[in-house]
């Protein structure tokens, strides 16, 4: 039973990592840049949801949807304002830029008087409910995380497999110039990719909020999502979720079976081993330039 219990908590934590990693992968696939601001976008999403629910008094579903939509718009605006001007520059400039965006977001949230330095509970209807199956105890919060992740994955799968938009995104991720010649509006697509990534981050934030509370530093969990993305292969969407699950499970089990301190570094040990053994990740595509 203990094993199963640990597994469920690992899976639900892994889903959060997976969702944030999904944001990295979406942006990496779409624009071949790495966003270090993903954790902060998640934090902004959680704060957005909080503001909608408590300050504006929206009903639950409306608040969730408006927070996600708001973050999508924010992501697109961010892409237009700071990412697009340096498109085509070395990848490292964009990494530094997104680190800057993350710093700024965290700083600005902390600066809001009376709100930024506090910790909040997101008032969700399923708060503190527990299901028991025999001796197994499942937090509804954990169940919601797992279910929402599954639904989101299915939606993204359909988007990328069947919709024109998704196929265009795949094309531009494989070769921007060729996609541009084929008449795909690459720049507008990049904006949409950032919007999508920000929306996914917001969902992750809203799912995580009932468990860890909403505070300005919750974005640091994004640093655990990097190992997830690497383990899954940085350019594979299902890989991000699987990587997240791997990291979540490893963390959950090592926290229980190994001595103190291993829980915090387990993710990084796994990623180092992965980079040594198979740098392209579990599901990464292996591309070779042929001469």
């Amino acid at each position, binding site marked *: 039973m203990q094993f199963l219990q640990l597994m469920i908590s690992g899976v639900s934590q892994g889903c959060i990592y997976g969702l944030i990693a999904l944001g990295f992968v979406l942006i990496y696939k779409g624009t071949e840049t790495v966003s270090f601001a993903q954790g902060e976008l998640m934090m902004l999403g959680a704060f957005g949801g909080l503001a909608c629910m408590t300050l504006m008094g929206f009903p639950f579903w409306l608040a969730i949807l408006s927070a996600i939509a708001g973050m999508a718009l924010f992501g697109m605006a961010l892409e237009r304002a700071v990412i697009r001007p340096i498109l085509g520059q070395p990848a490292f400039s964009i990494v530094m830029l997104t*680190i800057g965006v993350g710093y*700024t977001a965290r700083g600005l949230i902390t600066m809001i008087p009376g709100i930024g330095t506090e910790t909040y509970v997101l008032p969700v209807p399923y708060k503190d409910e527990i299901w028991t199956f025999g001796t197994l105890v499942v937090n509804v919060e954990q169940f919601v995380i797992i279910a929402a992740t599954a639904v989101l994955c299915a939606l993204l799968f359909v988007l990328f497999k069947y919709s024109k938009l998704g196929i265009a995104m795949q094309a531009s991720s494989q070769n921007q110039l060729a996609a541009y010649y084929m008449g795909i509006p690459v720049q507008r697509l990049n904006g949409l990719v950032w919007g999508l990534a920000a929306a996914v981050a917001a969902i992750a934030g809203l799912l995580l909020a009932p468990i860890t509370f909403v505070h300005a530093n919750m974005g640091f969990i994004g640093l655990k999502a990097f190992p997830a993305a690497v383990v899954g292969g940085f350019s594979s969407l299902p890989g991000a979720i699987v990587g997240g699950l791997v990291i979540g499970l490893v963390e959950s089990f090592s926290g229980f079976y190994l001595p103190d301190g291993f829980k915090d570094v387990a993710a990084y040990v796994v990623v180092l081993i992965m980079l040594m053994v198979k740098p392209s990740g579990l599901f990464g595509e292996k591309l070779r330039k042929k001469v």
Partner: protein
Amino acid sequence: MRFIFKTDYRQDIRLAKHPGHVFWYSALVLLLLAAPWLFAEYWLAQLTFVLIYAIAGLGLMLLAGFTGLFSLGHAAFLGVGAYAQAVLTNAGWPFPIALACAAGLSAAMGLVVGLPALRVKGIYLGMATLSFGFIIEEVFARWESVTGGNAGMHIKAPSMFGWTVSSGEAFYFLCLGITVAATLGLLNLLRAPTGRAFVAIRDSEISAQSMGIHLARYKTLSFALSAALAGIAGALYAHKLQFISPEQFNILQSIDLLLMIVIGGLGSVHGVFLGAIFLITMPQAISMVKDYLPAVIGQAPGLQAAVYGLVLIGFVLFEPMGLYGRWLKIRAYLQLFPFYRKGMFKRQKSFQKSDRLK
């Protein structure tokens, strides 16, 4: 406008290209030597920090700016140096030997971390170094018998051969000497074949390889040298603060180091020093203007992070060459007056090139 007529091959690799260099750098050295008598004690301490960060920055610049390998966990090397120095000094070792051991241990760590760099690059290397940084930080926190854990540890003043460096002035001169040696060493390395090989690897791995540069050897060498410099800086940092704890060497410190060299100007030794000055004076400047701002903004705890972020965004967007690039533009403007054109330093438009195809 100055025209240099080259009449000798040696002129190409001379460190001082013309008499102006000799004059200005001598003036700078004189100023730095006179600093303890010119500045108040507080500012001298800040200047010492600038020198310490500059040493670490030289290391990171060698790695990121000249070899093109980015490390997101450089604070770990700083920490290894600091803890090695603390443990050895407290065990009674003289300063130079402890410093050499700290640098050596750090360099050995750099070799180990450099190994993944042979297989992965770009963002994957960033991940590897980031992970390494987290693991080392946790080791510092957990290995309590040596590092004192989260409670931190104290370190004695540096002493060598019966002479103890106890005053701030003496320590400043110690740092100044090591900084000058490190800078000259790096400049000398960069004009030697090894440094040229690093730059060639940065510009194109494939062409470097076809010129006969052993990629694996030079990449690990770059990591080791960079880590050694960071280790020396860490050792001095430990002596300066006299107290070290694991959270001084976390991811934020690594990002601060990166921020320093990006704002200073990637790929220039001047940039390291400009960046270090920026990094040290920025918090002072913020706390100075704090009182003049409305309380809502001035007293908010997140002000510093927000300003850092905005400055970083601004530099990446508008001044990718950093502070040193800005100085180059000003110099070109003055030299060419009135013929400076706006588009002279314009960035080239380019399409994204894929890293995924090797």
